[in-house]
């Protein structure tokens, strides 16, 4: 029999409404409110061993203290899983369910589950990390939500394969996972084209991504006083690739001291898997033009070339990693007082 600990707010914990939203977390060794209905859904295979109740305002205003209490209770009670909500469209409750489930999963590694209406702000706070069952927007939807949550909870407890969002009833997590289809890709393409040509319904396998737009920084007023850094996604690294940066789908970046050299030629080469490397290996400055920047420095066109050169591989590198690398490199450059960056690809 699996043990489940349940989390609800002051309202569903039957303590009170808005006037009780400031109550501190408390623990009861019994099923209260939705925990009871949930228990019915998992009967015979799992049982709810207790209910945590916390005021929504208290949780959102005293997050650390609330989580400390909650995590301690969970550590003492040793459940196999934590279930929170459903929060429907209650924003602060949704944020609390998100906070509790993400913390439990990340810190204790336990399976977790919650439920929310898709416009609840709590959804964005946790849906990429935990399963959020899709619910209606008010407590009237409780009777529809609990069976779905119960079924999914049992699957998570047993470590069974979780199906597609629409099949299991959870909100899409924004993760695109690779699976083996029944037909080969070309057959699926021909079928899709024939459907289009005969005005029959079809479904794309890849909805177009939405892109971020970056506003360019203001122009540098006086280049002759500016420190310029050189950054590349062209995979130019010192010979031997000391930091083992990947040739595609980079998981890291490197930085190398170029203050004492006038060009990359000689000491550097490319490990990038996305272009003909022969000409870059002859002269890596063709990809990352340290030679010209150093000439500009000597001529006084620019004030100074920043002492470190930053590099990674762009080919096949996930945008998630690119954002992380850019943020990390940008922070270093900003703190070092760099005024501008020459950023080259391949």
């Amino acid at each position, binding site marked *: 029999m699996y043990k489940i600990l349940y989390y609800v707010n002051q309202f569903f914990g039957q303590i009170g409404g808005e006037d009780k939203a400031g109550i501190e977390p408390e623990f009861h060794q019994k099923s209260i409110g939705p925990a009871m209905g949930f228990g019915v859904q998992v009967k015979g295979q799992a049982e709810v061993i207790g209910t945590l109740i916390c005021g929504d305002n208290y949780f959102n205003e005293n997050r650390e203290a609330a989580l400390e209490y909650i995590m301690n209770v969970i550590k003492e009670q040793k459940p196999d899983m934590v279930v929170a909500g459903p929060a429907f469209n209650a924003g602060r409750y949704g944020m609390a369910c998100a906070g509790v489930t993400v913390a439990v999963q990340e810190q204790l590694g336990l399976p977790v589950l919650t439920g929310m209406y898709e416009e609840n702000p709590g959804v964005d706070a946790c849906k990429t990390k935990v399963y959020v069952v899709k619910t209606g927007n008010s407590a009237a939807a409780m009777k529809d939500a609990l069976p779905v949550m119960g079924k999914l909870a049992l699957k998570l407890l047993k470590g069974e394969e979780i199906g597609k969002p629409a099949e299991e009833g959870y909100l899409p997590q924004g993760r*695109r996972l690779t699976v083996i289809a029944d037909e*080969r*890709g*070309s057959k699926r393409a021909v079928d899709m*084209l024939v459907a289009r040509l005969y005005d029959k319904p079809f479904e*794309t396998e890849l909805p177009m991504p939405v892109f971020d737009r970056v506003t360019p920084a203001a122009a540098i007023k006086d280049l002759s006083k500016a420190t310029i850094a050189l950054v590349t996604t062209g995979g130019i690294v010192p010979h031997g690739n000391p930091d083992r940066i990947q040739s*595609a789908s980079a998981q890291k970046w490197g930085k190398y001291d170029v203050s004492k050299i006038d060009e990359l030629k000689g000491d550097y080469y490319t490990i990038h*898997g996305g272009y003909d490397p022969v000409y870059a290996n002859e002269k890596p400055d063709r990809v990352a033009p340290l030679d010209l920047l150093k000439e500009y420095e000597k001529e006084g066109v620019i004030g100074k070339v920043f002492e470190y050169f930053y590099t990674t591989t762009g080919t096949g590198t996930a*945008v998630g990693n690119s954002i992380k690398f850019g943020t990390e490199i940008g922070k270093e450059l900003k703190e070092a007082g760099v005024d501008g960056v020459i950023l080259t690809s391949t």
Partner: protein
Amino acid sequence: MKLEQNRIYIKDIQFGDVTAVNNGILTVNKEEMINFLKEDPKVKDVKLDIARPGEKTRIIPVKDVIEPRVKISGGKGFSGVTQTTTQLGDGIVNILYGAAIVTVGDIVGFQEGVVDMWGEGAKYTPFSKTFNLVVDIEPAEGLEPHMHETTVRMAGLKAAEFVGEAGRDAKIDETLTYDIGNIDEETKKYPNLPKVLYVEMLISQGLLHDGYIYGVNSQLILPTLLHPNEEIDGAVISGNCVAACDKITTYQHQNNSAILDLYAEHGKTINFIGVIITPELTTLQGKFRSCDYTAKLCKTLGANGVIVSEEGYGNPDSDLLMICKRLETAGIKTVLITDECSGWDGASQPLADTTPEAVAVVSGGNVSHVVTMGPADKVIGNDKAIATLSGGWEGCLEADGSLKCELNAVIGATSEIGFHYCTAREY
């Protein structure tokens, strides 16, 4: 054009005294084949090995895969490459169906890959199901990289022709006929069927990034029109290009699944009027030229629908979507085949470009999907190569010989001509 493909079913490969097929068993005379390939002074040594479906065998680093065939009438072999130039697409060809030549050897670049014949890895590569004659090519010392690549590419094609010769007089198990007349004739036959073209994009960017049509490097061409039979008769070959997961190997050109699946609908739901080969160039002007020219060919030929397949990822995503935009704007219904780079967790944006016109897209899966493939009993080639291949990293070959890598490194895993079965779904 009318092409008859005679299939000789191959049920095993063994080494023997003669290179011949008997009762579905392909025997290969090792010494004769090695001597033949060593006639090229740029080839220092050749080793041959066999990998069968289900065996716990890993092949790495794989450069190309080629189907052994022999042309009986209507042109010769790899026209313009290993043979003098002749027109392909008509006549009779005998095929050792179920067999493949797989080339391995010293690494030329990062775009080479792995083929596992069993277990988890076998699910992700179509070449776990073929009986593979593995040709391990050691080039002469001091070859510069472009010549090294040319040498192994030519050795693989010659190996396929040498073995294919065994099919000349072998017993034929099945004959497939590919017959499509000129556009006028077909349109008279099927006046009410929508006209469909297939646009096949080829990476065209230099070392390990080129394709060849009748021996002409795709970098040098304007988009060009082929009869579907020409490609499945050997007119297009791989320059061993791009990451292993979505390079179009020569075998995949010879058996281009997009062409074959369009063929299957010809005369039923569509009128399949041709194949356009489009180079993916690296310069902006090159991209505009290729994409404008491709759309113009589709419009000029009166296409109602088009399938566009990509090769590689990153900057070619732009070419793919630029072509789509042009075609949809001209009222031509378009389906794209691509793959995705959404990171280990599948949470990143999957393409390097976007356009609202791309409403019908088939995905070959996420190139960064990480798979763990168990230890092999036998490694043909060198499994340490994985550390530097696209999709591998230092330490991804574990102490027990198991391999943890991205699909990037698996030959044909995310095929963008739709040759394999992977796709990506949102969870």
